[in-house]
C-alpha cells in the first residue's frame, strides 16, 4: 500500500496521461501567451508596435487551436479560431493594435485559464463569457480598414511587389507610411556560404533597420554564387547604411519616391503561397515563419501519448533577437540548426509531475538512512570485531556512497527549482487589469525574476502575492490627481523584488503610495473589537502595522468592491506561514508601503539541527537558526513574567521548549525499542541538568532563544507533511525519519517565534496549548 501511492499515478491509462500532458502543455502556452501580450502592451504603451511579438502571439493561439482540436476541447478551439482571425488581421495591419484590442486579448488569456480549469473539472465552464468575447472579437474584425496606397509612390519593381507576401507587403507599407527610407541592396553570395553570409548581413543590418524581403535577382550570379536583392527599411541616411554594410559584393542604393504615382494595385497577388516558392531563403528571413503545420501538431500528439514532452509551441519557433523582451523561462531553442525541416523535437525538455520528484526525494531519504546504517556497521566492525581492514573498506564504500547520494539529492533539488518569473508574469497581468479597473496608472518594476525557488512554493505564492498587489493598488497607490497634488509622479510604481539571502528567498512588494496611516488602522481595529480601546493608546508602531494581519481586520471606509472579497491579509499570512515563511510590513505615511516575504528555498530537503528536550528529539531547520550557545541560567532576567537574556547587547526573548510543549515533568512517551519485549519507559533525566543550550532562531527580523537540553547534531532531512489529523497542531512543519526508524518532529520556527512573541502582549495565547494534552503520569 505504501509503495502504490508514492508512484504518482502509474496506474493511469495512457489516455489520462496524454490528457495531463495536454493540460500542462496548454497551460504553458497560455502562460507564454500572457507574457507576450504584456510585452506587447508595453511596446504599445510607448506608442510603438512589435511585429515579431504579434507573430508570437499568433503562433501560440494557432498551436492552442490545434491542440484543443486534438483533445476535443470545443470551447477552446472555437475561441482560438476567432482569436486567430483577429491576430491575423493585426499581423497584416488590417486593424490597429489599440488598447481595446489588447483588452480583448488579455480577456481571452484569462478565459483560456478558466476553460482549462473547467476541463479539469475544477470550475464551471465560463460559457457566457466566452460567448461575449467571441461576439466582441467578431465586431473588431469588422472594423478593419485598409492602409493608404503609399507603396505605389516608390520606384519599386512591379515584379518584386508581385511576389511579396501579404505580410511583407504590410511591413513595407507600414514602414513607408511612417516616412522611413527604403534601400535596395544587391548582394552577391557564394553559394557555399550563403547561409552564414546572409545571417551576418542580417545581423549587421538589424541595428539600422528592418529587412523587408530578399529575393534572388536572377542575374549577376554564376554557378558558384547567387545575387539577392534585399529591401531594407531604415531611418538612417544612405551613407550610414553604406558605411555599416559596405563590402566587395554589396551595392546599396536608396529607393526614391516617384514623381508620378503609378498604381501597382493590379499587379498585387497577395498570396502567402509565394513565401513557399522561395524555399529556404524565405524561411531564413525570420520575418515570416510559417505557423506550425498540421504535421507538426500530429507529431506533438504522438509525443504526448508516449509521455515524452512535445516541444511547447513558443520556444519551438526561435524568433530571433526581437524576442529579447520575452520571459526568462523560455528554454533556449537552437537558433541556427532549427532551419532544416525536421520532425525531431526542438526542445530537449521532459515535463515531470512534481509528485514523481517527491517520490524520488523520498527514496533519497531512505538511502540516506541506509547510509547512516552502513556507517554504524563500519564503526562496529572496527570496534567490536577488530577487523580494521574490513572497516576501512566499508568506510571507503560509505564515503563514495555518501558523495553520490549528495549529488543525486542536489540534482533532484535543482530540477524542482523554477524561476519566480513564472509567478511574476501572472502578477504583471493582474497589475494591468486592476489598475485599469481602478483607473490608476501603475508601473510594475520587477527585479530578480530569475531567482529560483521550489516549484511547490511558487504555486502557492501566486494567491498571496496577488492579494498584496491588489491591496497596494487599491489602498496604496493614490489617484492621478492626488499624486500630482502631493508632488509625486502621476504614474504609481509597484516594485516586485526577489533575491536570495542564504537559505531564504526574499520577495518584496513595495509601492510608492500613501502608506498605512497608523491612526486609521488603530481606529478601525478598535471599532471591529480587535483591540480594546484602553490598550489602543499603548500599542507600538510595529504592532499597529501587524494589526492588518489580524483575522477580521478591514478598513471599510477606504475599501472598494475589490476588498470585500473575503480574502484578508490574515489569509496571506497563513498561506505564507504554511510554506514556512513570514510576512512583514513596513510603511511610511505619504511615502509608501513595503511588504517583505521571507521563504525557505525548498520544502523538500532541509538541513536541521537535531536537539533534545525532556528526552524527546526535535529538529529545528538550520535556515532559521542564527546560532546555538551555552545557556547560563544566571543571565536570565524576567520582565513581566517573561524570560529574556542579553546577547551581544540586544535583548533576546527566551522560550523553554520543554515548557512551551508542556513536556516538563511528563515522562517521555513511547519510544518503543522493537527489540524490547516490553517497552520500557526511557529514563527520566535527572532534574539538575549539567548544561543546557540556547538555540537562537530568527525569521526575518524576529529572534527568540529556545532553551533545549542537548544539541545532538546537524542532519539533512527529507521533510514530510504530518497527516490531516495533526495539521491543526501548531508549531510543527512536518516530521522526518532520523534513522533507527525513529520519527523526529520538525519545528516550524516561524510559527513558534510568532507564538512566543505574541504572548508578550497577549496572555490568551496560552489557550492554544491544548489543555487536554496534559498527559497522564501513568503513560507507558
Amino acid at each position, binding site marked *: 500500500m*505504501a509503495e502504490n501511492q508514492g508512484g504518482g499515478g502509474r496506474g493511469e491509462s495512457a489516455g489520462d496521461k496524454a490528457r495531463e500532458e495536454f493540460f500542462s502543455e496548454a497551460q504553458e502556452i497560455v502562460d507564454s501567451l500572457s507574457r507576450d501580450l504584456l510585452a506587447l502592451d508595453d511596446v504599445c504603451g510607448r506608442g510603438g508596435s512589435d511585429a515579431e511579438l504579434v507573430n508570437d502571439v499568433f503562433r501560440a493561439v494557432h498551436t492552442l487551436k490545434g491542440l484543443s482540436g486534438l483533445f476535443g476541447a470545443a470551447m477552446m478551439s472555437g475561441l482560438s479560431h476567432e482569436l486567430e482571425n483577429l491576430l491575423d488581421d493585426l499581423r497584416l495591419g488590417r486593424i490597429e493594435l489599440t488598447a481595446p484590442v489588447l483588452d480583448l486579448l488579455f480577456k481571452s488569456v484569462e478565459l483560456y485559464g478558466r476553460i482549462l480549469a473547467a476541463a479539469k473539472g475544477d470550475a464551471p465552464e465560463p460559457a457566457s463569457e466566452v460567448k461575449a468575447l467571441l461576439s466582441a472579437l467578431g465586431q473588431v474584425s469588422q472594423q478593419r480598414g485598409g492602409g493608404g496606397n503609399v507603396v505605389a509612390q516608390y520606384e519599386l519593381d512591379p515584379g518584386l511587389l508581385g511576389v511579396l507576401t501579404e505580410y511583407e507587403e504590410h511591413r513595407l507599407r507600414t514602414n513607408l507610411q511612417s516616412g522611413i527610407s527604403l534601400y535596395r541592396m544587391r548582394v552577391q553570395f557564394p553559394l557555399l556560404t550563403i547561409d552564414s553570409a546572409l545571417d551576418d548581413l542580417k545581423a549587421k543590418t538589424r541595428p539600422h533597420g528592418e529587412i523587408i524581403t530578399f529575393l534572388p535577382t536572377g542575374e549577376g550570379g554564376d554557378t558558384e554564387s547567387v545575387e539577392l536583392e534585399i529591401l531594407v527599411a531604415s531611418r538612417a541616411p544612405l551613407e550610414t547604411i553604406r558605411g555599416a554594410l559596405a563590402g566587395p559584393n554589396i551595392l546599396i542604393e536608396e529607393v526614391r519616391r516617384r514623381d508620378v504615382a503609378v498604381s501597382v494595385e493590379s499587379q498585387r497577388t497577395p498570396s502567402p503561397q509565394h513565401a513557399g516558392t522561395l524555399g529556404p531563403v524565405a524561411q531564413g528571413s525570420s520575418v515570416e515563419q510559417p505557423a506550425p503545420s498540421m504535421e507538426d501538431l500530429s507529431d506533438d500528439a504522438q509525443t504526448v501519448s508516449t509521455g515524452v514532452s512535445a516541444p511547447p509551441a513558443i520556444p519551438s519557433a526561435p524568433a530571433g533577437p526581437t524576442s529579447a523582451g520575452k520571459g526568462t523561462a523560455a528554454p533556449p531553442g537552437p537558433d541556427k540548426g532549427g532551419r532544416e525541416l525536421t520532425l525531431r523535437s526542438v526542445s530537449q525538455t521532459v515535463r515531470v509531475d512534481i509528485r514523481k520528484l517527491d517520490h524520488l526525494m523520498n527514496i533519497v531519504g531512505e538511502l540516506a538512512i541506509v547510509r547512516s546504517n552502513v556507517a554504524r556497521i563500519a564503526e562496529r566492525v572496527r570496534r567490536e570485531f577488530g577487523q580494521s581492514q574490513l572497516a576501512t573498506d566499508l568506510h571507503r564504500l560509505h564515503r563514495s556512497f555518501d558523495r553520490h547520494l549528495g549529488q543525486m539529492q542536489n540534482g533532484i533539488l535543482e530540477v524542482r527549482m523554477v524561476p519566480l518569473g513564472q509567478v511574476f508574469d501572472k502578477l504583471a497581468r493582474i497589475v494591468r487589469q486592476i489598475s485599469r479597473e481602478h483607473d490608476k496608472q501603475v508601473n510594475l518594476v520587477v527585479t530578480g525574476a530569475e531567482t529560483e525557488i521550489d516549484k511547490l512554493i511558487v504555486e502557492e505564492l501566486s494567491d498571496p502575492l496577488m492579494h498584496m498587489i491588489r491591496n497596494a493598488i487599491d489602498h496604496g497607490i493614490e489617484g492621478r490627481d492626488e499624486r500630482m497634488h502631493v508632488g509625486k509622479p502621476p504614474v504609481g510604481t509597484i516594485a516586485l523584488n526577489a533575491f536570495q539571502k542564504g537559505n531564504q528567498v526574499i520577495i518584496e512588494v513595495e509601492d510608492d503610495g500613501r502608506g498605512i496611516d497608523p491612526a486609521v488602522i488603530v481606529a478601525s481595529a478598535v471599532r471591529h473589537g480587535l483591540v480594546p480601546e484602553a490598550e489602543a493608546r499603548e500599542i507600538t508602531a510595529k504592532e499597529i502595522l501587524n494589526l492588518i494581519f489580524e483575522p477580521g481586520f478591514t478598513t471599510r471606509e477606504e475599501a472598494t468592491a475589490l476588498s470585500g472579497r473575503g480574502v484578508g491579509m490574515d489569509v496571506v499570512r497563513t498561506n505564507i506561514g504554511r510554506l514556512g515563511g513570514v510576512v512583514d510590513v513596513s510603511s511610511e505615511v505619504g511615502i509608501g508601503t513595503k511588504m517583505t516575504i521571507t521563504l525557505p528555498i525548498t520544502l523538500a530537503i532541509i538541513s536541521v539541527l537535531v536537539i533534545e528536550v525532556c528526552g524527546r528529539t526535535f529538529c529545528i531547520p538550520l535556515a532559521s537558526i542564527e546560532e546555538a550557545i551555552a545557556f547560563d541560567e544566571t543571565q536570565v532576567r524576567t520582565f513581566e513574567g517573561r524570560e529574556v537574556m542579553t546577547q551581544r547587547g540586544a535583548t533576546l526573548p527566551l522560550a523553554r521548549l520543554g515548557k512551551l*510543549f508542556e513536556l516538563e515533568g511528563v515522562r517521555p512517551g513511547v519510544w518503543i525499542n522493537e527489540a524490547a519485549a516490553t*517497552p520500557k519507559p526511557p529514563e527520566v533525566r535527572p532534574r539538575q541538568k549539567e548544561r543546557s543550550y540556547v538555540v537562537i532562531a530568527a525569521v526575518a527580523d524576529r529572534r527568540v532563544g529556545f532553551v533545549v537540553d542537548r544539541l545532538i547534531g546537524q542532519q539533512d532531512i527529507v521533510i514530510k507533511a504530518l497527516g490531516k*489529523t495533526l495539521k491543526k497542531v501548531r508549531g*510543527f512543519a512536518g*516530521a522526518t525519519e532520523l534513522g533507527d526508524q525513529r*520519527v523526529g*518532529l520538525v519545528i516550524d520556527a516561524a510559527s513558534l517565534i510568532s507564538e512566543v512573541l505574541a504572548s508578550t502582549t497577549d496572555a490568551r495565547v496560552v489557550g492554544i496549548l491544548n489543555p487536554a494534552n496534559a498527559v497522564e503520569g501513568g503513560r507507558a
Partner: protein
Amino acid sequence: MKALVEQKTEGRSALQRADELGKRVEYLAFMLGPEAYAIAIGGIAEILKPLPITEVPRSDPKIVGVMSVRGRLVTVIDLKRRFNLASTFTMDQKSRILLVDVGGEPIGLLVDEVFQVFRLTDAEIEPPTVLGSEQPPYVVGIGRPPGGAVLMLLDLSPLLQSDLMD
C-alpha cells in the same frame, strides 16, 4: 502426502459447505481492554507490531503520535482513547497497530491484541439495535461466531473521516 491431499479436499468441502450457508465476510477481531471488537478485514492494509512512535506535543489526546512505515508517515490513533475506554495509554508486546487507509492517508489504529479472523455469515450477525436503539453509527452489528465469542463489529471509516475533517 496422501494425508495432505485428504486434508485439502476436506478443506475445500468445508469451504463449499460454508458457501452454501450464505455469503461470508471476514472480520479481524481485536481486543480493547477486556472487550472484543472486529472490523472487516478488507479495510486493513497491514497489521504491524509496535514500532517506535513519536508523540506529538499539543496534539489531541486520542493521538498516540507518528511513526514511519517504510518511509511513509503514519498517524497512530489510540482506539481505546478514541472510544473513551481508557484515559491512559498502554502498549506492550501484544499490542498491534492496524494500518488503514482513510481518504488516501495511512492511519494506524493501536489495539491491545489481535486474535483471529472470523468468517461471519449474515446469519451470525445481529443488528446493532439489540444493544439498544441509540447506537453510534460506527457500530454495524454484533458478531456471534461459533464458539461463543461475541464481537462488536465496527465500520470505522465514517468515524475516522470525521476525525480528519475537524
